[in-house]
């Protein structure tokens, strides 16, 4: 996906949602979108279409028809009809997809894998590489996850339960996976990208802001976190000139703004804002010997 990767990943949930809204079949539509992404990666270098999203929807729709054709030859698809608890406005499509991927009957590892593929637009091979498992293992994991979502008979709509905390937890796990080891930076970047997306959809949610802040503040210290031999450098010994000042400023702004809206130390939630409060302390240097962090060179 080099070259158009960012655009394709941004469009992935929109295209998938458009397909599922129009035709249903979350599991097969997801495969169809992946194939459309692949076609785009092959064809767009010769020229990006005028309306990339419409192009992807058209190609994915055709692939969906093809896939349904081969599927329906094998089995008759019959299921109980469950009306959606709420019809989500189409502006919430990416959130609906995140809720589907974070279905409560899925294990965390399945939720993560499905989220990265269906919402993040990563290929199975990329996800397998990030989690250091064979591609075949990841293929089976994602396949089973989609079967579970499909078997649950969920319609395309906002679930009755508030699943946002689960979504945030999944994004946090993705971030941690990326942060845990060198060479997996793409997962932290992806977690931050998805957290930004959720924040666009839920701009007033303090937990979302808190989680994004936590990710930004933590990731900002990455360059200083390890020495030349990959050894961990303690916070007090880190060269703060290496920290990403822009991310730190953004993270602090987010948490500060969130605090003014919601008391941060609630026992029931507090998933994002509390740790980011700690991260602010670190980023602003109040636990270390150095003065309050003012940005590199100060």
């Amino acid at each position, binding site marked *: 996906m080099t070259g158009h990767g960012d655009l394709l990943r941004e469009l992935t949930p929109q295209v998938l949602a458009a397909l599922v809204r129009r035709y*249903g079949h979350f599991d097969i539509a997801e495969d169809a979108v992946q194939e459309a992404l692949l076609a785009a990666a092959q064809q767009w270098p010769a020229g990006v279409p005028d309306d990339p999203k419409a192009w992807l929807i058209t190609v994915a729709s055709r692939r969906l028809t093809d896939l349904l054709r081969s599927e*329906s030859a094998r089995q008759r698809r019959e299921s*109980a*009809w469950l009306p959606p608890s709420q019809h989500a406005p189409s502006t919430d499509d990416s959130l609906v997809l995140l809720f589907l991927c974070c279905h409560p009957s899925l294990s965390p590892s399945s939720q993560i894998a499905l989220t990265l593929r269906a919402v993040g637009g990563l290929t199975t091979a990329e996800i397998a590489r990030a989690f250091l498992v064979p591609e075949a293992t990841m293929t089976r994991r994602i396949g089973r996850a989609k079967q579970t979502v499909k078997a649950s008979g969920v319609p395309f709509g906002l679930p009755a339960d508030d699943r946002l905390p689960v979504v945030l937890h999944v994004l946090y796990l993705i971030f941690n996976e990326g942060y845990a080891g060198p060479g997996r930076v793409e997962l932290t970047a992806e977690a931050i990208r998805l957290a930004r997306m959720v924040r666009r959809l839920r701009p007033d949610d303090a937990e979302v802001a808190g989680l994004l802040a936590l990710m930004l503040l933590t990731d900002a210290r990455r360059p200083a976190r390890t020495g030349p031999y990959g050894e961990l450098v303690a916070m007090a010994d880190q060269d703060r000139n290496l920290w990403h000042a822009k991310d730190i400023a953004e993270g602090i702004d987010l948490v500060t703004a969130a605090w003014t809206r919601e008391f941060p130390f609630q026992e029931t939630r507090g998933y994002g804002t509390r740790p980011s409060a700690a991260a602010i302390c670190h980023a602003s240097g109040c636990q270390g010997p150095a003065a309050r962090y003012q940005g590199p060179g100060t």
Partner: protein
Amino acid sequence: MKYLILAYGSQRDYDAMAGRPTDGGPSWTPQDFEAMGTYMEKLNNDLAESGELVETRGLTAPVHARRLRQQDGAMVVTDGPYAEAEEVLAGYWVVECDSYDRATEIATRLFHVPGPVGAGADVVIDIRPVAESRHEL
């Protein structure tokens, strides 16, 4: 007087039109498909110009159909309920014209849709007078 003109097609016909391989059926090229589109546009434009066209729509492939029914009081959905060769509604026209014969004349144009050899050989078109009120039922 309003008439509904109904055109039918099977999933196999849709597959053929999309250029997918079908066993024994005619195979459409993109040029064939374009020629068909141009013919249909001309037909629809003519009807719009004469003021007879109320509405016309083509339907997506039968594989996308959903059938809803009740089973022991619960709603059951079947996706793609049709057999491959089953002829189902593929498109329709609502025309408003002076007589049943004029509506029939319009419908005959659907037998001249261009396509590859063998396509359309077994085409059937239905024409149904639309009830103007429930008293006509």
